[in-house]
């Protein structure tokens, strides 16, 4: 997809974005892995993806609040651009965005982790 932004914290001892990246990729593969875009199912898919990611992230047991967002778009040649901006503690908080696609759809999942004081 043209013009996508990428956010990674890259600092140890704060939010581990690589770990989150793996969790998200696994959740997406499990939910929509081999499927084609289907309007009747997409609602269920996005809900499953965010719930699964959130559950796995919380299981890590770290002192964070989490927000997981997921967008699934049918591939028809339309342009899509997303952006995030965050007002937080850059030392402790972080985000990770995963872009996934197959033949018929794009899936973009973002995880935001905000440290609890």
């Amino acid at each position, binding site marked *: 997809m043209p013009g996508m932004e990428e956010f990674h914290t890259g600092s140890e001892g704060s939010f581990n974005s690589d770990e989150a990246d793996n969790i998200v990729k696994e959740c997406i593969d499990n939910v929509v892995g081999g499927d084609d875009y289907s309007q009747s199912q997409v609602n269920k898919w996005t809900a499953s993806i965010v719930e699964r990611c959130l559950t796995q992230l919380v299981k890590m047991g770290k002192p964070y609040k989490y927000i997981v967002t997921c967008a699934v778009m049918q591939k028809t040649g339309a342009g899509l651009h997303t952006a995030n901006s965050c007002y937080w503690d850059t030392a402790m908080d972080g985000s990770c965005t995963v872009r996934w696609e197959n033949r018929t759809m794009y899936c973009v999942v973002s995880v935001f982790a*905000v440290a609890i004081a």
Partner: protein
Amino acid sequence: MDSYQIDEDPMLTTFVVDEVRKIINEAVESVIGGNVYQHSRVKQWNSSVTEQCLSQLSKLGKPFKYIVNCIIMQKTGAGLQTACACFWDNSTDGNCAVKWENESMYCIVTVFGMAI
């Protein structure tokens, strides 16, 4: 001896959806209102909308951390579905999503606010 209790004004410590919706609507209207989808300009529009929202939100002066997410999509008949899940404090934290459209594009802005 009398005792006085000054309670926290909930407007100052909780996420107020209407206030935030107003900020989002104003930001989107001022940046892309009246424009036609243009691939060359969309990146700049996206940045402007999110930055404007964030600066207006921080001006509210509340003890909150904010995340602003903006999606701009060209209208060509493609299907788009978005979802979000949050693990936070339900009494103080919140979100507000605004879906805006004109003839050539959709713009979906979501603001998440978390109390510090």
